[in-house]
C-alpha cells in the first residue's frame, strides 16, 4: 500500500502517481502560484480530464485542480461498497423541492478523474434529432452544432476510451465499428434481451468503457461487478486511467486535494486566477484563463460564489441562468423474482440496453428513454427494498434472501428543463468555510408521463420473461444527467463552463468552451463554437485531430 490518499497531496514534488504501476510515479511539471499559467481547469472528470490533456498536448501551460484525492486503483480500491464511499462527494449539500434529489453516492464524485472513476461505463451517442430537438421534435432547444460534427467526435472519443460494443447498432445512422468487441452478456442482460424479443423491439449489447481485450497496461475486464465502486484492475477507461496520465506526460500539472473556492477577476471583469485551499492553506493561482468543469452542482456553486462588483450575479451569468434548469435522468425501475439463478452481481451492471423509446416518437409526451439491465450490490439493493417498498424487519430479511433470483430493468429518461429546478447557495458552510449548494428539484407533467410509460413497458418486458413478485421503484435517486447514460459522452462536454445539465439550454447564451475571462452573454448566441472569439477558440482549438 502506498499510504493514505487523503492525508496529503500525492501529485507534488515534481511527480504524480503512475496509476498503472503499483508504487509507480510519473514526472510532472509543476507551476508556482505566481506563474501566470495559460489555463486553470477546475475539475478533472469527464470534462476536465480530456480538456487538460488537449491543452497540454497543444503546448499550453495548464493546471487541473481537483478537490478529491489522487487514487491508485491497483492499491487503493477494495471490492467493497462501503469502503468505496471514498470516491464520492460526501460533503454536505441541502436537497429540497417536490422531489428532492439523492446526492452523494453515485450521483457525485470527488477524485482525480471525477465521477468517471465509478461511472457505469455506458457510452452512448445522442440521437441525431436531439441536436435539433426544438425544430425537429418540438421541445427543448436546438444545439448550435450539427449531429454530423458530433458523429466524428464520438468516433474519436470511442477510440480514445477503447469502447467495447456491438458490430451493428440497431438505432440511428450507421456508426463505425467499436474499437473492442462487445462483452459477454450476464444473466441479467440476457433477461433484458429476451424481454425485448418477446415485445418485438430491438436490444443490443451496451457500448461500455471497459476493455474486452488488453489495451496498453489495462487488462480485459474480469467481470467482478464492482464497476460503480471503482475498478481495481484498471480495465475501466476512466479519466484517471485513460486521459490523466496522458495529460501529465504532455506537461499538464494536476493538483489533487485542492478545492477551488472562488475565481478572481480584475477591474475589467477578466479572470486572473483562482483561490484554492490545499493542505489547510488558502492560496491563489494566477492564470490567463479559467475553465470550470465541476459538473451540475459544483460548477454553478463556484460561479455563484465568485460574484463580485463586476459580476454581481456570479460569473458567466449575465443571462441569469447559472444554476437554473438543472436536469436529471429519471431512473425509475421495475424488479422481479425469477426461478432461475440470475446472480446479477457478476459483470458490468448494464450489459444490455434497449433504446427503442429514444427513437420511437409515437408517445404522448416529449423526449425519450432507454432501459438497461441492472445489477445492484447488497447495500444498493437493501436501499431499493426499503425506499421503494418501505420494508423493514423480518419482511425485509425475507425479501433480501431472494437476491440471487432478482432481475430488474431501469429507465434512463430525459427530464425537461424547468427554471425552478436549480442550484443556489445555502447559508450553511462546509469544512472549507464555503457556502454549500442547495439543490431544488421537482418533476414536471411531461416527466411524470414518461415515467408512467416506461414503468408499464418495463413491467411488460419482465412479465414476458416470467418474472414474479414484480414491484416498481418509483422514487429513484434520479441521477444528474451524465455522459455515460445519456449519450453526452466524450467531447460533447469539453471545456464547457456551464453545468452539463444546462448545456442544451445555456449554450446559445454562453457559447461553447467559454472560459470565464469574459461574459459576453447573448452576443454569442448564434455563433457556432468554432467561430467564438479567441478565448473560446483556444479552449477548443487543441481538440480537432488531437484526440
Amino acid at each position: 500500500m502506498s499510504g493514505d490518499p487523503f492525508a496529503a497531496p500525492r501529485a507534488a514534488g515534481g511527480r504524480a502517481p503512475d496509476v498503472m504501476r503499483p508504487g509507480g510515479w510519473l514526472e510532472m511539471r509543476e507551476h508556482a502560484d505566481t506563474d501566470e499559467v495559460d489555463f486553470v481547469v477546475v475539475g478533472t472528470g469527464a470534462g476536465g480530464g480530456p480538456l487538460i490533456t488537449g491543452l497540454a498536448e497543444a503546448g499550453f501551460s495548464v493546471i487541473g485542480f481537483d478537490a478529491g484525492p489522487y487514487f491508485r486503483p491497483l492499491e487503493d480500491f477494495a471490492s467493497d461498497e462501503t469502503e468505496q464511499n471514498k470516491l464520492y462527494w460526501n460533503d454536505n449539500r441541502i436537497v429540497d423541492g417536490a422531489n428532492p434529489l439523492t446526492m452523494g453516492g453515485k450521483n457525485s464524485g470527488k477524485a482525480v478523474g471525477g465521477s468517471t472513476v465509478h461511472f457505469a461505463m455506458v457510452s452512448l451517442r445522442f440521437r441525431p434529432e436531439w441536436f435539433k430537438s426544438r425544430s425537429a421534435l418540438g421541445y427543448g432547444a436546438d444545439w448550435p452544432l450539427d449531429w454530423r460534427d458530433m458523429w466524428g467526435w464520438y468516433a474519436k472519443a470511442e477510440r480514445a476510451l477503447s469502447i467495447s460494443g456491438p458490430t451493428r447498432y440497431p438505432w440511428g445512422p450507421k456508426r463505425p465499428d467499436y474499437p473492442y468487441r462487445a462483452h459477454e452478456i450476464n444473466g441479467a442482460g440476457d433477461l433484458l434481451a429476451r424481454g425485448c424479443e418477446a415485445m418485438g423491439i430491438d436490444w443490443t449489447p451496451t457500448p461500455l468503457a471497459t476493455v474486452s481485450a488488453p489495451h496498453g497496461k489495462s487488462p480485459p475486464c474480469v467481470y467482478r461487478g464492482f464497476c460503480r465502486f471503482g475498478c481495481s484492475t484498471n480495465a475501466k477507461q476512466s479519466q484517471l486511467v485513460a486521459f490523466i496520465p496522458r495529460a501529465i506526460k504532455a506537461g499538464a500539472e494536476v493538483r489533487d486535494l485542492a478545492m477551488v473556492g472562488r475565481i478572481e477577476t480584475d477591474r475589467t471583469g477578466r479572470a486572473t486566477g483562482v483561490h484554492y485551499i490545499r493542505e489547510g492553506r488558502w492560496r491563489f493561482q494566477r492564470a490567463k484563463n479559467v475553465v470550470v468543469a465541476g459538473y451540475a452542482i459544483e460548477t454553478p456553486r463556484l460561479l455563484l460564489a465568485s460574484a463580485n462588483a463586476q459580476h454581481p450575479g456570479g460569473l458567466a451569468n449575465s443571462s441569469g441562468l447559472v444554476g437554473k434548469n438543472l436536469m436529471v435522468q429519471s431512473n425509475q425501475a421495475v424488479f422481479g423474482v425469477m426461478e432461475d439463478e440470475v446472480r446479477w452481481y457478476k459483470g458490468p451492471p448494464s450489459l444490455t440496453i434497449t433504446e427503442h423509446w429514444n427513437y420511437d416518437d409515437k408517445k404522448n409526451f416529449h423526449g425519450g428513454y432507454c432501459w438497461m439491465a441492472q445489477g445492484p450490490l447488497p447495500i444498493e439493493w437493501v436501499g431499493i427494498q426499503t425506499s421503494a417498498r418501505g420494508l423493514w424487519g423480518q419482511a425485509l430479511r425475507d425479501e433480501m434472501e431472494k437476491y440471487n433470483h432478482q432481475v430488474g430493468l431501469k429507465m434512463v429518461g430525459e427530464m425537461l428543463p424547468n427554471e425552478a429546478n436549480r442550484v443556489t447557495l445555502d447559508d450553511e458552510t462546509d469544512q472549507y468555510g464555503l457556502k454549500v449548494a442547495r439543490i431544488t428539484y421537482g418533476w414536471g407533467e411531461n416527466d411524470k408521463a414518461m415515467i408512467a410509460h416506461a414503468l408499464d413497458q418495463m413491467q411488460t418486458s419482465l412479465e414476458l420473461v416470467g418474472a414474479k413478485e414484480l414491484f416498481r421503484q418509483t422514487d429513484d435517486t434520479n441521477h444528474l444527467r451524465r455522459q455515460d447514460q445519456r449519450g453526452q459522452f466524450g467531447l460533447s462536454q469539453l471545456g464547457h463552463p456551464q453545468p452539463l445539465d444546462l448545456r442544451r439550454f445555456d449554450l446559445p447564451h454562453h457559447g461553447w468552451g467559454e472560459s470565464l475571462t469574459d461574459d459576453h452573454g447573448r452576443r454569442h448566441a448564434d455563433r457556432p463554437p468554432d467561430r467564438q472569439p479567441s478565448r473560446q477558440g483556444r479552449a477548443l482549438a487543441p481538440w480537432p485531430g488531437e484526440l
Partner: protein
Amino acid sequence: MSPRYPGYEVEAKRDTPSWNEATRLAVDKRLAVPREPRFFTTDEWITLEAICDRIMPQPGDRPKVPLPAYVDQKLADNVQDGYRYAVLPPQGEAWRRGLRALDDAAHGVFGGPFRTLLPERQDEILRRAQAGALEGEAWAGMPSKAFFEHRLVPDITHAYYATPTAWNEIGFGGPASPRGYVRMALNRRDPWEAVEAKPDHEAKARQANSRVR
C-alpha cells in the same frame, strides 16, 4: 428456518484471488468496530439497540452483527452522506432527537420506554413513525416519516449489508478482486460462488459450500 446458503462463508475466500489487500484491510477494520458508544449516551444506545432488533432482527444462533456500534461509529466519525433533506437536521442531531421522540411516543401510547415494550408494540411505534403519524414537542418540527425513511432505516440496514454475515445469508459472491467471475450466464455458478440449497438437499449444498474458496 434453515439458511438458503448453508455453510457458505464468504470469508473463506479471504486469502484467495477474490480479495485484494485493500479489501482485507477494509473488512478487518469493519469487523473491529468499537462496541462501546462514542457518540450516544448509554441510555440512547440501549434504545437504539432495541430499534435495531426490530428493523433488522437477527437469528439467535450466531453472534449479532453489532448494528448500534456501526450507527454510533458513523455519527462519532461524522461520516456524511453527501446531502441532507432540508426538513432534517444534521445526522447526529436527527438521531438524538429521533430516539428521544420515539421514546416519548412509547411512553405516550404504551406507558413505558421503548426498550421495555413487547416487540409488537415496538413495531407499532415504528410503523407510526414510518407513516408520519408521530408528532409532538420532542420532534421539534422534524417529520417522523423523513427521519424514519432517510435516517433511521438506511443507517441501520446499510450497516448490516456491509458485513460478511449478511453476504452469507443472501449468497452474495462478496469481494471479487482481482479474480472476478467466469460463468456469467443464467443458472451458472463459478466454484467460488455460493450454492443454494434446494428443498430437502440442504446437506448437499452445505457440503458444496464447504469447498467454496
